[in-house]
């Protein structure tokens, strides 16, 4: 039997595959159609201090081998998440590790949510979202300056009962100083990558299709950018990386792991195929067997940092 287990700070995962934040709600919907215990973990939708309505519709558009989204962090707020969403997951999937994606407008918001959500018994790690391109405040602002990212990380790490993974933005000139600053500030690991900023225009109206004008580009189209950034961060840090960006097959997952990722999140692929995650997990043993491997750890060895 192939051993798919991987261990990261806070996360002892039976396999490295988890749905990406924002693409799987709080598990309830996909849970109607398959047993979520098949998953390594779940990264839940971004939690903010107050409930958020998000942006106006249309919120999604399709692009070649990709999609744009400008959901704008709609979520019911930390109170409802603590009182309804996380307990539902704990009741139905007591063994399933949850990673809580946290967002906010201000440092105080982030800190408050981290403190509270990290106390939920099934939240095993936090994914600090400093890279959402779809909100006017917070999000990207914290994610594009090493100093701002470090200050925020430090404050969140200080109040969190669980390891904090920082989700970095690909929309920067150089990700390395940001990753280094975040590592020095106490992050347990990185989550790479959030979406690229993109836009689509309807030639008929000559106006952007998304109500928010711009949106985050995800899906296979961005996989080469994700691999480059994972490889770049791996070349300067030994911290674990949750890799994501365009993964839809077991081969994609291994490609990101070869670049330096220790676990894999799957976002957009869930929309093409609602069973993308369990299918990918089921396919991993055969994919590893192609390389004469029977456990994932031997594959996932971080590569030498040889990047430019």
């Amino acid at each position, binding site marked *: 039997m192939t051993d798919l287990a991987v261990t990261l700070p806070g996360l002892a995962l039976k396999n490295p595959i988890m749905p990406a934040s924002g693409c799987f709600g709080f598990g309830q919907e996909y849970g109607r159609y398959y047993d979520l215990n098949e998953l390594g973990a779940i990264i839940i939708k971004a939690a903010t201090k107050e409930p958020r309505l998000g942006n106006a*519709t249309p919120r*999604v558009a399709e692009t070649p081998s990709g*999609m744009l989204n400008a959901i704008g962090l*709609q979520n019911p707020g930390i109170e409802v998440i603590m009182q309804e969403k996380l307990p539902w997951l704990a009741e139905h999937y007591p063994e399933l590790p949850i990673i809580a994606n946290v967002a906010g407008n201000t440092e105080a918001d982030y800190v408050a949510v981290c403190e509270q959500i990290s106390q939920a018994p099934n939240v095993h790690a936090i994914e600090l979202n400093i890279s959402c391109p779809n909100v006017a405040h917070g999000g990207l602002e914290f994610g594009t300056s090493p100093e701002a990212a470090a200050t925020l990380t430090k404050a969140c790490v200080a109040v969190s009962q669980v390891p904090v993974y920082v989700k970095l933005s690909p929309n920067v000139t150089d990700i390395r100083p940001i990753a280094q600053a975040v590592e020095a500030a106490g992050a347990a690991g990185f989550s790479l990558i959030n979406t690229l900023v993109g836009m689509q225009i309807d030639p008929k109206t000559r106006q952007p299709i998304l109500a928010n004008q711009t949106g985050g580009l995800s899906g*296979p189209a961005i996989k080469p950018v994700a691999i480059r950034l994972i490889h770049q961060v791996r070349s300067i840090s030994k911290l674990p990386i949750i890799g994501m960006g365009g993964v839809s097959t077991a081969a994609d997952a291994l490609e990101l792991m070869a670049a330096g990722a220790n676990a894999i999140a799957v976002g957009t692929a869930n929309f093409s195929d609602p069973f993308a995650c369990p299918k990918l997990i089921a396919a991993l043993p055969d994919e590893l067997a192609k390389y004469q491997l029977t456990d994932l750890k031997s594959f996932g060895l971080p590569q030498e940092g040889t990047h430019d």
Partner: protein
Amino acid sequence: MLPLEYQLTLTKQTEIAPSIYELCLTGDLAQQPIAPGQFVDIKIPSDALLLRRPFGIANVDRQTNTITLLYRVVGEGTTILSESPVGTSLSVLGPLGNGYPIDQLVAGQNALIIGGGTGIPPLHELSRQLNAKGVHVQHVFGFATKAAIFYEDHFRKLGPVAYATNNGSYGYQGHVGLLLDAQFADATTRYDAIYACGPKGLLMAVDNRFSEHPNAYISLEERMACGIGACYACVTKLKRDPSIQLKICDDGPVFKTNEVLI
């Protein structure tokens, strides 16, 4: 666990009006309980298109194990679909969403079905199910022109149809709202249930006119990603409290009139 995905075989495809296709998909989805107004979400057979395309279910035939969709070619996905040959196997999610409530009606009651353009397809299955219950159905349909009309015979078999066309080439000249005012002014009292699907303007016209009707429903469209309620792409706000948002794919696509902000 609920079933969700079916591999259906494209068994027939016909262009029934300019750019409007009738598509027959055969497979076990047809055996599921399907409420009129529910929809399917189809993986277009193209490697570059990721998002599924939602379509209302226009007809369910359990005997031939076949559902029928009616769709307009508007972009890349529907173009590829329209060029897919008989025999193509398609991954189809469904039945999705909540359909039009019909259980409250009994034989002999009257229903008004209002539709426009490509909002009309799910109203066909609705009208069939109402007819099967013995409900009398009046249809009011809007089209751009006479040439754009499809399924006229199908609907006439299910009950009278009043047409409105923008240019007056067939039936009433003007949009459906005006036709309603002109010929169905007493609709609120005359019909035990009212059902609508179509473009935004039509839905607003219906929502305004029948906001107090206890049994009036509209079906909404929005760009979708997951189709099952997980991604928050397709939300709409509640009228009575716009800080509450419902998901069109999962809480809808059918809502009561006066319920949501269109």
